[in-house]
Structure formats: C-alpha cells, structure tokens
C-alpha cells in the first residue's frame, strides 16, 4: 500500500476528511478517554437503536478527538466500524481491527488505536450502566483499566476540561 510519510493513504484520507466527527445531542452513551502515552484525548458519543431482530445496535456514533494524525484517523475509522453493529459485536472491536482497516500504522503510533477502541467500549459501558443493564465481567475489567489511565491524563487537561464543563452548563 502506498504511504504518505509514515502513514498509509487510507489513514491520511480519514485524517483529511474524518467521518462522523462532532457531538450527538442527548447521546445514550458517552466514552471519554485519554492516552497516558502521549496525552491525546478522545470523546465518543453513541445513540442505541434496535435491528430487525430486536437486538440493540450502535445506531449513531460521533467523535471528538484532540490528537495526532493517527488519533484522528483511528477515531474516524472506529465510527465506521461500529455503526450498525450490535452492542455485543461492537465491544469486540479491538485495536487490530482498527489498524488493519487503516492498512497499518507506524509502530510508534500503534498506541493511538487503543484509544479509539477504549472510547467505544466506554460509550457502551456508559449506556449499559445508565440503563441498569447487565455488564459482562471482561467489560468491567477493561473499564477499570481505562479509568486508571484517564485519571492520569485528566490531571494534564483539568484546566481545559473545566472550561468545557462550565461552557456546557450555561
């Protein structure tokens, strides 16, 4: 596959023209994650719907990301991958799915793909929790790990987060 610098053309295309960015008003689930490695931050919003078989699916998905080319490209591609999937399928999406849909990432940027997978998982976790639904054990464990990492990154951005929160209160 052809490349632009260290990135594949596919990664660049997603970065240049990201799919599904922005916020969803009154989302069913929100995932907010930070990357302790480099300090990137990603927010992911979902609306949950039902498919023909009555199973819950990711009906709508949008993201907001502060980060590098890889962070934005992986954010964009996870929204494509998640859209229309059942919640069960969506939580199984992992960094490998993301990296291969982009045709690869530079080794130093592989950690960015974790961020996108985590954000989706967190949004689904948020939805399940809010709606008092049963949360599988492995989801709870992954959530605990993400929480720990978020705390670390949260320290870095507390000024900005405060400004954001105050703005949305108004």
């Amino acid at each position: 596959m052809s490349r632009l610098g260290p990135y594949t053309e596919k990664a660049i295309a997603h970065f240049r023209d990201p799919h599904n960015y922005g916020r969803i008003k009154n989302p069913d689930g929100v995932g907010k994650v930070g990357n302790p490695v480099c300090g990137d931050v990603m927010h992911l919003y979902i609306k949950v719907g039902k498919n023909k078989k009555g199973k819950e699916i990711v009906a709508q998905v949008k993201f907001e990301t502060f980060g590098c080319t890889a962070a934005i490209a992986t954010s964009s591609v996870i929204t494509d991958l998640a859209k229309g999937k059942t919640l069960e399928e969506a939580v199984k999406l992992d960094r490998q799915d993301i990296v291969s849909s982009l045709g690869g990432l530079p080794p130093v940027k592989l950690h960015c793909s974790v961020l996108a997978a985590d954000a989706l998982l967190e949004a689904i976790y948020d939805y399940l929790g809010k709606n008092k639904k049963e949360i599988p054990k492995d989801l709870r464990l992954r959530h605990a790990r993400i929480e720990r990492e978020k705390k670390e990154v949260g320290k870095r951005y507390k000024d900005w987060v405060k400004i954001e929160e105050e703005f949305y209160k108004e």
Partner: protein
Amino acid sequence: MAKKIYLDYAATTPIDPRVLQTMLPYFKGEAFANTMSLHNFGRKANQAVEESREAIAGMIGAKTGEIIFTSSATESNNLALKGIGFANKERGNHLIISQIEHDCIVESAKWLENQGFWVTRLPVDRYGFVSPKDLEKEIREETILVSVMHANNEIGTVQLIEELGRICREKGVYFHTDAAQSFGKLKIDVNKANIDLLTASSHKIYGPKGAAMLFVRNGVKIEPLLHGGGHEGGLRSSTVNVPAIVGFAQASKICQKEMKEENERLIKLRDKLIKGVLTNIPGSYLNGHPQNRLPNNANFYLDFIEGESLIMQLDFGGIAASTGSACSSAKLEPSHVLLAIGLKPQQAHGSLRLSPGRWTKESEIDYVLEVLPKVVEKLRRISPFKKLDQQKSG
C-alpha cells in the same frame, strides 16, 4: 499549480546555487585529493581548505588555526563537551549547560554523567533566557566547562552571550556556545564575548550538509574524539571533505556580505507572521522573546491543537513547518525546550515553528496567514476542546 512553501529553514536549508558552483571544482580534476598528500593534487586541496578556514575564522574574530572542521554541529558539540571533559579531568569534573540545549548537548552531557562527571542544567525564564546570576552561582571549584547555546533552535531566543562569557572568563572556566542557529545570521565576536569554543554548521546557512566547525581558542586543552592520521591539527582525523568545506566557507561569505539587508527583510517577514497569527487566531501565543530572537524564527503554541496534525494539515496546503509536539517525536515526549520555558505538556503539544529564509517571499507569508487560521479552525472542530475559542470570539 499546487503551492510548495518551505518554512523550515531552521531545520535545514537548500544550498545556494552560488555555493554549489564554488564546490564543483573540488570533486574531480586537480583539487579533489587528500589534503595530507604532498603532491600537487594534495596541495591544491589543502590550499582550498586553508583558505576556507581563514574566511570562517575571520567571520568570528578567530585566528585561522583555531578552526577545526568537522562533519556536523552534532559532532562539534560532542567534541566540545567530551573533548574538554576528558582533557581537563585533573582540573575538575563539573560541567554546566542550560535546560534548552540541543539534543546533541543534552545527550553528550548525559553520557558524561555516566562517565563520572557532574552536570548542572541551568533553568531559563519564560522567554528562554539563562540568567547570568544563576550561572555565576553555579560555577564552582570543579567546574571546567560552561556550554550555553547562542540562539535557540526552537524558540529563537538569543542569549545574553557577552554577559555569560564575561562571567566564565572571570571565573577561569571554559565557555562553549552552540551557534548552529546564529552563525551567519548574527554578528559574533569570540573575543568580545569571551567565547573559548564555538560550534557552527554549514547546512543551516545555505551550504552543503557534511561540513561544520568547532572554534577552539588557542591554549584550550581538548582531546580528540577521532584518532587517526592527524588531520585538523590532530583534533579530528578523517580525510577532509574538501568540497563541503569550500561550500561552507562560500556560504559563510555570502551570509556575512548580505547579513544586514537579509536580516531586515527576514525580520519584516517574521514580524508580519507573528502579528498575523496572534491577531487572526484566537488562543495563539508566541514562544520566545518578541524582539530578542532570531530574524527567521516564529514559534507559537495554540490552544486545543496537537502539533503533528497541524503539521500534516499544513502540508496538505503545501506549507512545510515543524512542531515540538510529543506526537511528532520518536520518544513521544514534548519538547524539553518548551517545558523549560514553563509551558504545560498540553501547550507544548500545540506548538508550531515557522522559519522563513533566503527564498521566502512576502506573498508566501500572506498565503500562510490565509491557510493557517482555517486549518486551526478545522482541527478545533474535530477536538473535544474548543469552547474557549468560541467564548473568546463571542
């Protein structure tokens, strides 16, 4: 036609065609030979190198024999620190550098620490200035060398070099300065500034890569890093890269001749860029000192922006720039220079360096001022952090 605007002259410069012309005879014909050879071919090559040495020495007020040619500023800086360290071990084992030195000084100092030396790293203020008072306090009995760069490669701040040099001279400590960014752009007098060692490089001033120098004042005790045939007065054995050195000298001469006018032109472009960015982009700030900076350096940080994506987006628009963002570094760490001037990691994340040069036109600066705000806006739209921006602009 797609635009291609190079604003990364601080990283490296293209060669000036006038420089290239003077180099060509030294690749073949009668002047290609080893400068150590006694025959006519060797003497011709040697003569060219000695004339180059004289020209470069003259630019900084040095004696011809005080210039050691090397392959790069990295090599010169390694030679300065390690060479002084090992030659002066009996006198002491303490070195002083600043917190904003180039990686090749930082890493050389770290390596020396592993060899049993002690290193003090002087802090800088928010503009990047080392305080002469701090320096005076830190010099002690065992101090053998102080190394503070003349002009910073990232934020462009030019140190109060004469004051620092005076203190070192009074205390009897060698003073080295890395002038890779300032040589050929600012006037330097090694005697007036009491500089004992100085690093300069060819490829930053429109000369070829592969040539640089270390000025070593007569009488300074220094050990070579490269042992061999005894080139460069025994301080740097290696067959001499004659064409590159001839090019380096020619590039230096052109810079010296055109310095005044070129600086006036560059300062105009630089200040237009700075003013344009600060007024047109909310949440943008200048790094470094507003006036006391390199004529060709503009460095900013932008709220809610990550530098690597900014560089990529600018590249789509045909603009070549650079950043100190963690995401763009192999180590995934933000620039140590930006942290040293007091920026938080997230602010260093959004840093942008634009460095114009000899072939930058005013129309190109105008183009950058048109594209940059749009790109910043686009990235902020994607980012979860953006509201400060909207609040500010109402």
